[in-house]
């Protein structure tokens, strides 16, 4: 990042959310890089940026699309890079109809399931073998997450036009798609004056190419939207066109908010994934091991997923050890099966409906941290039992006693049956283990002291819980108990507390040879014959040679800036993915200034500052033989080795459920009619028509004026997420001691709010109160001749801890991105009034009054497709299973 010549920060308040990471931005700035910040609010990041662009929340695609348009219409793309390393030249099926020509819907939309059949999106000549077909199910299972480590499947034999002139080549399609995303449109949609937009577009393009690179930084300001994935796609398209991927100082940098949130998707505690991004099997899609494996590797596909069978077999081997044999498909039968969406929000609704008996909360505080706090609390109040493991007594543990619903009479302790176990947890210094930080780097933590009192690590809790359960089941003959009884669960423990040995677990994650017991050093050693057991194949190598590579701590000042000997990064300790792209097709560095990884012809190998993210001896001139598959099928100039065609995707024929190209849709709740298309919001967004859930009306619906203002929430430097680790800590609590809402002076006057006075915000879900901070850091925007007022709130507050306040997440409803099922919790509409909110029953009446005025019927949501938008039936019919 410090090597960038221009840094664009959008959808992230990096200086506040990641101050220490921000030192690298400041370093680049010191060296003269220009820093742009795009945000609805002037933040501490804007304060030190070279330029700040205020934007209407939820319109980033319009802005970025206009940058794409600026690049294409002025031919500013890094042509040589684009031709060689992206799918710009690929010809797309002529069945494909762009959203531009269908008022916001792409071809293949199935109104029955509000999802796409992607056949018409495929490359020319491959309409039928898309391997994805109907996407309703993919949405239900958040399949998008799988693509964290690899692109979706496409065949590698494609028609190309290297002149980029063919009307149906990706380049031309892209050009047409974004043609209407002009500076004028940016002004109309985002409220950003055109000259300011042009300043950004120029700086970005001028600082990219052979000699220079630009870096794009985003965070949850992008992901927590109903089109979050497409935000990121748009950014990626720009970076690919400008040749800013796989090169030093380039890239699309995701800043994640939690110590090991990367790790918790790599080794997922997510319903739809198994370790290493292997999909959890689906009852219909994956009847047996082979079907399951083939659905991952797509026979005949290029790239490293060719080894999927070995990765899968090795995982099952790690789970069930000797009981996993080639004969019994390594115990594939033991795996539970998906039938649809089992995500956290679906779970909560099921709790309300009494379908869930028990709930574990492991260092998580949904009563404050999840959207629609009321639904979360009502759900928990309707369980048989709840286990909360945390450092502090958090809101999710005391909702039955002190929650807002107790005040409104919706939860009566004497009538709440939920049995609550609070188990104190061990802090990060009281246990050892690895965190995986945001750049895929694993770092080992040494244990400093024993946890106090009854506090224990999760490792301890689950190991011993598993031990007890297995003891209780010992001798059971029930088939359903086999999976538990066959499980390899024999980890050595040590110390007074009988703490399981974390290194032993890490060794299993790394994988070992089941015969010799030797740890593996790379995932290419994985076998599908049961001779290797690997807990998480992408982590193979972290315990290479029996050495804990994540514990390496060679001081940074003793290494070059790549610092390859600090911790261990997956895959194979690569610090930058796809770094083959930092050299030209012939393997030479694009420029001296941006030299990183290159082909050393004399030595006959790839070399450079980093571990080449490429087969190290495969020459640039290599061309795969006919019929080759897997890694062998990758040509010497296919840098994107995890992509099934080795190319960077400007156009996504599959894998992305809401369109092959990013398209501007308004947020699910918006005061503005979509100026670009008849289709108002993302037609494929995941909606829940549950009585507890409701959405504020947006144009063209009636009564949108009841909620005239836009609000957005985010973090403060001084606090952490739901506040469980900061509102409880005195030196942090005192720095931001109260819940507040930031408003522009104009809105303050408009709504009669006074500085440091009280205000309350109302949505269809809840009303919360906060102290008012009137500040110039928020400015009204002119959008289509209208003045749009935006408010901002921190979401850290709750009713427990040293400092308390209403929780901003209570304001949100539940609407999710179709690809990854992440909720839209960055933007909503609301009304704001001076003074404190009413309490008790009066509070519910207030919210009800607003619902009535807005004509909201519980459980009835706005239609997926905006009335009046023509829908032509999909070309083919997949077997849709999603419930719209």
């Amino acid at each position, binding site marked *: 990042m410090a090597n960038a010549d221009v840094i664009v920060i959008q959808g992230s308040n990096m200086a506040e959310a990641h101050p220490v990471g921000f030192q690298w931005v400041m370093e680049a700035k010191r060296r003269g890089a220009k820093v742009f910040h795009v945000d609805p609010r002037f933040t501490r990041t804007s304060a030190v940026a070279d330029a700040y662009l205020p934007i209407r929340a939820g319109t980033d695609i319009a802005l970025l699309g206009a940058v794409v348009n600026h690049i294409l219409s002025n031919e500013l793309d890094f042509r040589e890079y684009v031709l060689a390393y992206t799918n710009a030249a690929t010809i797309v099926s002529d069945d494909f109809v762009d959203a531009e020509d269908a008022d916001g819907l792409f071809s293949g939309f199935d109104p029955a399931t509000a999802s796409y059949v992607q056949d018409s999106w495929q490359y020319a000549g491959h309409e039928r073998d898309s391997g994805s077909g109907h996407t309703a199910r993919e949405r239900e299972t958040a399949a998008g997450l799988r693509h964290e480590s690899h692109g979706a499947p496409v065949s590698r034999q494609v028609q190309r036009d290297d002149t980029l002139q063919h009307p149906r080549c990706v380049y031309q399609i892209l050009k047409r798609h974004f043609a209407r995303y002009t500076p004028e449109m940016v002004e109309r949609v985002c409220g950003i004056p055109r000259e300011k937009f042009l300043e950004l577009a120029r700086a970005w393009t001028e600082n990219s190419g052979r000699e220079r690179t630009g870096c794009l930084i985003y965070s949850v300001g992008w992901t927590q939207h109903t089109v979050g994935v497409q935000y990121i796609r748009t950014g990626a398209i720009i970076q690919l066109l400008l040749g800013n991927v796989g090169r030093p100082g380039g890239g699309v940098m995701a800043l994640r908010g939690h110590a090991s949130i990367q790790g*918790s998707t790599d080794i997922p505690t997510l319903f739809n994934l198994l370790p290493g991004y292997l999909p959890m099997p689906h009852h219909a899609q994956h009847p047996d091991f082979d079907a399951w494996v083939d659905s991952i590797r797509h026979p005949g596909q290029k790239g490293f997923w060719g080894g999927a069978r070995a990765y899968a077999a090795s995982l099952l081997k790690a789970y069930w050890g000797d009981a996993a044999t080639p004969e019994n498909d390594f115990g594939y039968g033991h795996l539970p099966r998906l039938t649809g969406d089992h995500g956290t929000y679906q779970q909560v609704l099921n709790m309300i409906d009494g379908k869930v008996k028990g709930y574990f909360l492991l260092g998580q505080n949904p009563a404050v941290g999840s959207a629609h706090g009321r639904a979360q609390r009502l759900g928990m109040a309707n369980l048989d039992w709840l286990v909360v493991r*945390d450092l502090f007594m958090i809101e999710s543990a005391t909702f039955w006693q002190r929650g807002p619903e107790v005040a409104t009479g919706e939860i009566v302790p004497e009538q709440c049956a939920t049995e609550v176990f609070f188990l104190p947890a061990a802090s990060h210094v009281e246990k050892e*283990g690895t965190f995986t930080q945001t750049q895929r780097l694993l770092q080992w933590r040494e244990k400093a002291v024993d946890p106090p009192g009854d*506090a224990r690590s*999760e490792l301890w809790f689950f190991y011993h819980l598993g031990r007890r359960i297995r003891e209780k089941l010992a001798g059971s003959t029930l088939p359903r108990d086999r999976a538990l009884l066959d499980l390899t669960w024999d980890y050595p423990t040590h110390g007074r507390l009988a703490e399981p040995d974390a290194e032993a677990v890490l060794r299993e994650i790394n994988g070992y040879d089941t015969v010799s017991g030797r740890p593996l050093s790379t995932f290419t050693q994985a076998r599908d014959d049961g001779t290797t057991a690997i807990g998480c194949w992408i982590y193979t190598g972290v315990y290479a040679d029996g050495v804990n590579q994540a514990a390496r701590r060679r001081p940074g000042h003793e290494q070059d800036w790549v610092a390859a000997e600090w911790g261990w990064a997956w895959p194979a300790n690569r610090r930058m993915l796809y770094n083959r792209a930092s050299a030209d097709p012939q393997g030479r560095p694009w420029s001296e200034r941006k030299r990183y990884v290159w082909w050393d012809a004399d030595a006959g190998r790839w070399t450079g500052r980093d571990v080449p993210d490429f087969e190290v001896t495969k020459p640039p001139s290599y061309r795969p033989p006919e019929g080759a598959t897997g890694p062998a099928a990758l040509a010497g100039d296919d840098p994107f080795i995890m992509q099934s065609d080795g190319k960077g995707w400007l156009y996504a024929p599959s894998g992305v459920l809401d369109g092959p190209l990013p398209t501007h849709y308004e947020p699910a709740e918006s005061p503005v009619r979509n100026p670009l298309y008849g289709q108002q919001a993302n037609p494929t967004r995941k909606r829940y028509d549950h009585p507890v859930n409701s959405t504020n009306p947006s144009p063209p619906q009636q009564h949108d004026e009841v909620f005239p203002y836009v609000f957005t929430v985010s973090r403060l430097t001084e606090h952490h997420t739901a506040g469980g680790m900061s509102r409880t800590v005195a030196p942090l609590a005192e720095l931001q001691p109260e819940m507040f809402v930031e408003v522009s002076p104009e809105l303050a006057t408009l709504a009669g709010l006074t500085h440091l006075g009280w205000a309350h915000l109302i949505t269809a879900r809840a009303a919360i109160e906060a102290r008012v901070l009137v500040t110039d850091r928020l400015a009204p925007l002119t959008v289509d001749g209208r003045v749009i007022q935006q408010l901002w709130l921190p979401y850290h507050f709750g009713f427990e801890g040293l400092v308390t306040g209403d929780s901003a997440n209570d304001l949100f409803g539940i609407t999710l991105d179709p690809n990854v099922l992440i909720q839209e919790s960055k933007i909503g509409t609301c009304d704001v009034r001076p003074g404190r909110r009413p309490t008790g029953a009066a509070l519910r009446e207030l919210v009800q009054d607003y619902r009535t005025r807005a004509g909201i019927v519980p459980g009835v949501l706005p239609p997926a497709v905006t009335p009046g938008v023509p829908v032509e039936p999909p070309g083919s019919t997949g077997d849709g299973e999603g419930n719209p």
Partner: protein
Amino acid sequence: MGLRDRLLGWPVYRQLTGTDPLGRGAAACSNRSAELTARTEGADRVARSVCPYCAVGCGQRVFVTDDQVTQIEGDPDSPISRGRLCPKGAASRSLVTSPLRQTTVRYRRPYGTEWEDLDLDTALDMIADRVLAARAETWEDVDAEGRPLNRTLGIASLGGATLDNEENYLIKKLFTAMGALQIENQARI
């Protein structure tokens, strides 16, 4: 301490006899100040750790004396953070030593209005029983068409993202073997 030592130790005497006639520095220095040193110097051990807050992964050094964490500060060796910390990371010692931290098991029985104490071992046993009961009650062997499901939708879990990879691995492994599908974490939020 004899009278003589008292006199020699008397700053006024030092003023008159020493290099600091105005009593501004050397003469005014107290014994405590003279012997003062950084408490981290005397630490029994130093653990190399990683900040538990955001995902930047800043290195931390945890200083321990008499099995108490006496200081947590940035690890200058880390190429990621170069010894620096944000306010949250800098507050790590207060986090782990906070008086608000719960260190005993608490139990709320159904329809209860107050917390009760519970022994950890008993708690673990009760939880194991409830897991098995919920699993038995909601187990699904096959779907309508007889295709295997092998699962329970009666148990759900939501994990934070401050858990170690090793912990996540065991959690996923156990729940999967248990047939519990509805395992989620912060990453979805």
